[in-house]
């Protein structure tokens, strides 16, 4: 009824009240946390089409948005995060720039660099007391035999991606795979991960071929692809073409009407523009507003890197490397990554455990781990190299004792519950076997 009585000429008192930063509580200068973001400019690679414009500084905006987020929390906790951006020009010397530009008191470094450059840096004497957050590589070796105890990996490895794909294929019962790989080294590494996944999940690789043809669609795709794919009985064609030189040609041109997955078609990825679940739409929108484009995987990697730092610093109230690292690798660490599960690091190789999205060009198809794939510790460890399979002997990482952030009651409760359970079990058997 009151609805009828609205005064028409109501003066709106619109008060915008600023965030009270509890300035009084933190009159003393804030604790400073220095982060460097290190990357090297890239030459635009040859591409299949001009459809997707080349993005020069993938990753950078992800780091920026996360550091802003950290500083919002920091206002309340009396901590300030400072981001220094170092971009090495094409052909520049990354090691030299690192030594010149990263100050000795900056211990947290987010990188968007290829594996080989990253290990070069990590092995420097001056890098012993630093922690690298690798926001871009997918290299399996870097997480196994080539692992370093001062590198954490934010994006899923090729093996994790391939396993994600295999889980979904298994669910769909698309068991017969036809693997087509490109000529590049990365393509071979991707193909290797696919083979491993096929073996792990009991998929059958019915055929394997390498694409040695031209990359010019106008001339040959229409005639080459049918011939190339003819005479093979398969459920799904898995393509390994990381740079995107020919993979897009295959769908709709193959001899048999079969789906394409892998680096093109249905793509296993850490992040995708079609992903909107679990609050993702919010970070997608925030990113678009800031960067004027969609968030890319490397942006997501850098975002998670800086957010991990934020979490560790805020929870430990420290800017000391040892404390931050212990917290990151400990059981308490739980990072919100907009993918449903809390994210954490695998202590044995520094890989961030996370769901892998399976996305088509215009739709998010599903996310792995696919329901039903179980694991004694966490289903996320059904993806990639699990602890027993890992060839990383990153002793230092494992020996780090996790920081236990004190929480009243929890451990005692768990203990008493276990005792309780054992007692009940004993009682049960006593009555049963009497």
């Amino acid at each position, binding site marked *: 009824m*009151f*609805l009828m009585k*609205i*005064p028409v000429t*109501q003066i*709106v*008192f*619109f*008060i*915008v*009240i*600023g*965030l*009270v930063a*509890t300035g009084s509580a933190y009159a003393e200068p804030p604790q400073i946390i220095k982060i460097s973001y290190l990357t090297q400019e890239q030459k635009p690679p040859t591409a299949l089409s001009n459809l997707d414009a080349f993005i020069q500084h993938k990753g950078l905006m992800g780091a920026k948005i996360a550091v802003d*987020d950290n500083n*919002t*929390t920091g206002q*309340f*906790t009396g901590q300030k995060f400072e981001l220094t951006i170092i971009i090495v020009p094409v052909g520049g010397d990354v090691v030299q720039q690192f030594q010149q530009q990263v100050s000795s008191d900056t211990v947290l470094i987010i990188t968007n660099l290829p594996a080989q450059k990253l290990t070069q840096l990590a092995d420097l004497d001056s890098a012993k007391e630093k922690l690298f957050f690798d926001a871009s590589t997918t290299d399996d070796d870097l997480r196994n035999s080539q692992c370093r105890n001062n590198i954490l990996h934010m994006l899923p490895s090729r093996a994790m991606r391939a396993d994600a794909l295999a889980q979904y294929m298994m669910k769909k019962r698309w068991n017969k795979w036809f693997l087509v790989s490109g000529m590049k080294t990365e393509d071979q590494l991707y193909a290797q991960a696919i083979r491993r996944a096929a073996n792990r999940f009991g998929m059958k690789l019915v055929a394997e071929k390498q694409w040695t043809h031209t990359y010019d669609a106008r001339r040959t795709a229409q005639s080459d692809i049918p011939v190339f794919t003819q005479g093979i009985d398969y459920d799904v064609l898995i393509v390994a073409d990381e740079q995107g030189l020919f993979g897009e040609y295959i769908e709709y041109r193959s001899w048999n009407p079969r789906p394409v997955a892998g680096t093109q078609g249905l793509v296993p990825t850490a992040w995708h523009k079609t992903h909107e679940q679990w*609050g993702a739409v*919010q970070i997608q*929108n*925030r990113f678009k507003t800031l960067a004027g484009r969609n968030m890319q995987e490397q942006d997501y990697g850098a975002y998670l890197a800086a957010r991990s730092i934020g*979490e560790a610093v*805020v929870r430990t109230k420290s800017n000391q490397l040892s404390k931050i690292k212990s917290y990151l690798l400990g059981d308490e660490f*739980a*990072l*919100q990554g907009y993918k*449903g*599960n*809390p994210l954490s690091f695998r202590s044995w190789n520094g890989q961030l455990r996370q769901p892998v999205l399976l996305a088509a060009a215009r739709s998010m198809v599903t996310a792995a781990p696919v329901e039903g794939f179980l*694991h004694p*510790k*966490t*289903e*996320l460890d059904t993806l990639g190299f699990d602890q027993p399979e890992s060839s990383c002997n990153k002793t230092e990482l494992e020996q780090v004792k996790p920081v236990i952030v004190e*929480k*009243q*009651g*929890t451990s005692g*409760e*768990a203990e008493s519950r276990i005792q309780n*359970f054992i007692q009940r079990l004993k009682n049960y058997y006593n009555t049963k076997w009497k």
Partner: protein
Amino acid sequence: MRQGFLGIALVAMLLGVTVQAETVIVTLEKDNALAVIDPVAGKLIKTIEVGQRPRGIALSPDNKFLYVATSDDNTVKIIDAESYQEVGQLPSGEDPETFALNPAGDRLYVSNEDDYLVTVIDVVNKKAIAEIKVGIEPEGIAVSHDNQWVVSASETTNMIHWIDVKSNTIVDNTLVDPRPRAASFTQDNSQLWVTSEMAGTLMILDVASKQIIKTIKLDIPSVSMDKVQPVGVVIDKERRWGYVAIGPANRVAVINAQTLEVEKFLLVGQRVWNLAFSPDQKRLYTTNGRSNDVSIIDLENHKVVKSVAVGRFPWGIVSKP
């Protein structure tokens, strides 16, 4: 004979009264509708179109109006609680999801996730009267029963912001576990209960000191910790029991509100999201987002007695005497 008929008629009437006595209303995010349930009979009575992507829902203290956040219409709709007709709209700001009504029912506090704001709405005049800048991605929001505090939980900043109702300013902040989702005051206003989706915890905050006095890890035997993602939380008036909806773990935790220990876990539908008491607090209703139903829990025995299919993505829930 006549007396017999009369008796039956009387019983029927009484039954009719009982059936009429309580209604549960649920927002259906994907059906753009409200589901109206008779919880005593355990039946869906009807569904009514309400607007795009309805999520948060509240009932006015006089039980006459429903407020429904239709997120994709960027408004909070006022719905007559008898006829279910729309009678007005409130300027909620963009993409309203969760909101809270003050005890008097004349102020509505809305979380605007994309703008990091809490918008204060004068319900009578249907005007936004203040915007309060909070942390990133504010979600859970609650008003204390004595109308002193509005608390806003920001999911990315991982903070509870304490807003003084009189001045509409933040006067204190509490750092909580990652991705705080929902908050609820005890009836005596001495405690605030907050859920953390990522850490899988329920935190009990002391309102006087604004400090966490206990963190309860909701680990469920034989359920992996990844699935323990608490969302909705409610506490009964006598502060005997509190209940936490644990999302993809498909369970509601029963917490002894005196000892602050987990008593048991009740298996409900899939991805249990929000909770509402019956007006007499003898039953608890849950929205199960993935199994598209509402579970009815008998609180005297702490048993799930029924589930009612309602429609796609049930989200918010209220009960009306």
